[in-house]
Every structure is written in C-alpha cells, then in structure tokens.
C-alpha cells in the first residue's frame, strides 16, 4: 500500500467539495453570461431597449446590500474562529437578513416586469435576464438557508463553508450586475 501522499488540495482553505461546487457554479454562470453576450451581438438595439425596463437603481442598491452581507459573513468566520458563538450567530443573522432585503428588491423588479407583460418569451434579453438572475436569486435563497444551518452548527469549519458559498453568490452578482444591467 502507498503511504498517504501530500496533495496540493490539502492546502486549500475550507472544504474541497465546497470548492468543487463554487467552481462549477462559476463555470455555469460564466457560460450563461457568454451566451448572453453572444446573442446580444445579434440585436444590440433590442437588448438595450429591453434593458431599460429593469430596475437599475434597485440592482445597484442590491449590489451594496450583498457586498455588505458578504462582509458580515466574513466577520462571522472570524468570530467563529475566536469561539464567540453569540457574535457569530448575530453576524450570520445580519448577513441572512440582508440576503432577504436583496430578494425583496429583486421581487419588486420581477413584479413590475410581470405587470408590464414582460416574461421569458418576450425577448431573448428577458430569457437570459430571468434565467441568470432567477438562478442567482435561487442561490441567494439557498444561501440564506445555508447560513442558518451553519449558524446552528456554529463550528469554524461549517461557517467557513457557508461563508465561501455566500461569497460565491456575491461574486456572481457582481458579474451579473454590470453585464445584464449596465452595459
């Protein structure tokens, strides 16, 4: 039998499986954004017109909300390593609450689009907008559940995994926001 060999993977902070998930998510959202940009080349005016119906300000505020929430999650990991349970739970609750704010603002946009009769099939722009931000919102929701779970477990390892996932959600939004809402 072999002696267990040292692997570069051992130097990875946090859980290997979480990194596999994060890389997979980034690959999927990246492919989605590339698809979006490619299809936009076929109809720039149509995409610009459709984009004007989105809540740009709301999305901008949401960016600040998510980044702040990510900061709270990072502080929670510090608290977890320091063994301060109450503080880490309070910080995670704050992070999750901001996640809720994000979803609330996002829902406003969806509701307005819906009221204007704009949906998946109205234009290729909306197909991508709703797929990308919809998948992302689903991850925010999953992230809130995950933050609750790791807050309940309250071990540094669990909080690290939860925070890593939450930062990924954060990162994806920071990529989606300029591409889908601004340019």
């Amino acid at each position, binding site marked *: *039998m*072999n002696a*267990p*060999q040292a692997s570069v993977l051992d130097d990875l902070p946090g859980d290997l499986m979480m990194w596999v998930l994060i890389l*997979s998510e980034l690959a999927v959202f990246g*492919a989605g954004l590339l*698809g979006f940009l490619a299809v936009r080349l076929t109809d720039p005016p149509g995409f610009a017109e459709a984009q004007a119906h989105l809540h740009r300000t709301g999305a901008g505020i949401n960016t600040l909300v998510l980044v702040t929430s990510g900061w709270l999650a990072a502080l929670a990991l510090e608290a977890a390593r320091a063994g301060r349970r109450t503080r880490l739970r309070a910080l995670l609750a704050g992070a999750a609450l901001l996640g809720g704010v994000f979803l609330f603002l996002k829902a406003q946009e969806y509701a307005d689009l819906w009221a204007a009769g704009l949906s*998946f099939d109205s234009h290729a722009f909306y*197909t991508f907008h709703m*797929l990308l931000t919809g998948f992302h919102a689903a991850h925010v929701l999953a992230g809130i559940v995950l933050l609750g779970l790791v807050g309940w477990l309250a071990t540094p390892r669990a909080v690290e995994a939860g925070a890593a996932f939450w930062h990924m959600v954060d990162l994806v939004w920071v990529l989606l926001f300029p591409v889908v809402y601004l340019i």
Partner: protein
Amino acid sequence: MKYQTQKIALAYFVVAMALFAVQVTMGLVLGWIYISPNFLSEILPFNVGRMLHTNSLIVWLLLGFFGAAYYLIPEEAEREIHSPKLAWLQLAIFVIGTAGVVVTYLFNLFDGNWLLGNEGREFIEQPRWVKVGIVVAALIFLYNISMTVLAGRKTAITNILLLGLWGLALLFLFAFVNPDNLALDKMYWWYIVHLWVEGTWELVMASILAFLMLKLTGVDREVVEKWLYVIAALALFSGILGTGHHYYWIGTPGYWQWIGSIFSSFEVAPFFAMMSFAFVMVWKGRRDHPNKAALLWSLGCATLAFFGAGVWGFLHTLHGVNYYSHGTQITAAHGHLAFYGAYVCLNLAIITYALPHLLGRDPYNQVLNMVSFWLMSGGVVFMTFTLTFAGTIQTHLQRVNGEGYMDVQDQLWLFYAMRFGSGVAVVLGAVLFIYAVLVPRREIIERGASQPAE
C-alpha cells in the same frame, strides 16, 4: 471470494451475459435490415427488433449492476448479504418479467389491454404487470443491500452505490406517469431515460470503478474516496439540469434551450474526471494485480465513456447544432459508443474481475479476454465513426439541403454496410468474451513478480 453470499453475483452475471448475447445478435439483425430493409419484415418488424436490442441492453446492464452490488457490498460492508433467498427471488422476477415482455412483443399479445398489453413508449414499453414486477424486484433488492450496508461497514463506495441505486429505482416510478399530452409524456419519460444514464447510473459507474481501482491498483481508500465524491458531485450538478438538452423540441418553453445547452455541456466533466481518476490511480498504484484483463476493461471503460458519452455527447448537445442534427445517425453514433464505453465496459470489467474469484479459477485466463476487449472495442469505435460520417452527411443532405428522408437513406448505404461489418466484429468479440470468462480453466500467460493481491 471472502463471503459465501457473493456467489449470488454469479447467477446475475450469467443471466446478464446471456442477454448480452441476445442484445448484440439483435443488433446484427438490425444492422442487416439497414442494408436490406425487407429482411424479416413479416416475422420481426424493425421496431420490435429495435425494442429487443435496446431493452435487452438495459436489462442486462441492470442485472450486471445488481450482480456487481451483490459482489462488492459484502466485501465493502464486511458481512454476508442480508438475505440470499430474496436475491434469488429478485432474479426470478426479473427473468420472468423479461420473458413476459419478449413474448408479449413478438406475438403482439393483449394489444391495448390495460394490464397485459404493451405500453408503446420506447424503453418503458413493458406491460404494466411487468412494471409492477420491476418495482417489487427493485424494492426487494434495495431492502436487501441496504440492510446489509446498514448492519456493516459504511464506505464512500457503498454510499454512492446506494445513492445511485435508490435514485435509479425511485425514478423508475415515473414509468407509471403517462399523461395524454405528448409533450408532458416526453417530459416525464426523460426523467427516467436521461436521469438514469446521465445521473444515477453515473453514480453506480463511479462507485464500481472506484471499487475496481481500489482492488486493482492498491491506492489508498482515502484517495479513492475523495475522487469518488468529486465525481459524484460533478455528475449530479451537470446531469440533473442537463435533462434540458432533451427539452429543445418537444414543446417545452424556449428557456430549456439555454438551460440544456449550458448544463449538458458540463456533463463531459464527470466523465473526464472518471478517466483521469482511473489513469492517475494506475500510475500511483504500486500493486501489480495479476488480473490485467480487468484493468484493461476498467481503463477502456473510463476512456471510451469519456469519448462516447462526453465528447460525442457534446458534439450535438448545443441547441444550435442539435436543431440540425436531431434524430440523425449522429445520435446513433453517440448512443452506441456512450452505452458501450460507460456501461457495457463497466459491467464487463467487474465481471472480468469477479468471475475468477466466483468460479475459483485464479489465476485467470486473460489473453482471450483481452483479445475480446480489442475486438469488441475496435468494432464499436469503427461503428461510431461510420455512423458519425453517415450522420454528418445525413444532416447536410436532409436538414440543410432538404432532401427526402428515404432518398438520403439510399445514399448512406456504404456507411451502413461498413457498420454491419463492425457489428460482426462486436458479436464475435462478445462471444469470445463470454467464452473466455466462463470456459477455459487454465492460465495462458505467465505472470511477473508481483505483490499479493486482495
């Protein structure tokens, strides 16, 4: 063989190989019908022959999986199978059910009967009584192996294997969901067909491959397990929403084109990981296991699965491509190499590994077995190339130029003739394999100095 109940696997493997012979023979008949379309048209219509070809494939692969589970679970869990009697009962139900399907189809009995007649849906056309039998047999199987695992040692290999087998059985329940709306019918149909071969079966494949690597290469269990979890995660991540690549043109909303294209593109990842896993384990492993044929089949499985399922799948998975290539011989090329690489080779690998133990014939006959690998694999790969070329031409003539289907078929004759030739090689390879694992008792090649193997 350390545990008496591992013997159960022998019966499953033998029945599986018998159906394997039926499957490839049927394939040869169908290959000839492509060349001479009226061959047997009165006795054995093409659709019935095709049903026998695909269904005997699926049933023998499943029986192989069951056999593999009965073989490896006692070793992994370190105890005897919970109830051998139930395992025999399960096999009997499967054999009777399979015979029932064949007889019902060949003679078109009870046509339209709710309980006894065939249901006419590709792959899940079994009469309803057979479907109920399959569910009962699956429950018996899951109960039997779950009880064994729960009472014994739990390893990553048994965890992933059980996850795959439970998922496989639960998804089969959608065979009972048959809406009148054809789009919905197809939607649920893919819950079985796709989520089997591109979801749960991949878990079964990864865990059996992991077991073989553990035994054949002697790499640490810890290393094997890490790979196994990553592969399983990649398979589920890409495979579940990858179902969308079947929803392009069946009447489901347009967003499936993007969900399907993006997620199914990543389905190549778990297959690439499995191929890397197999080769890295062999390079890292220090054990020189005498069963070289099992190693050959394992590596061949991982490699051909990557090309057949991964690369050939990706070729036509993007909806912009599939718009033209859908339902042409490209699909047939992919289907043949993917099933062969991923699941046929996997079963033949575990059979090649297990049979010498089960028959008490170590050391093994390997040369014939390895010849059968090259003959069969060469045949299937050649077949894949001929069908890929046929499909490319067909796509252009039929979908781009708009020529009639049958006019195009006439022009593909040369490729179908070459495909028949490769089919002959596959059948000879299959017969040789069955002969090599069951009949000869003496070792043919000398084995080099090696460490003792498990």
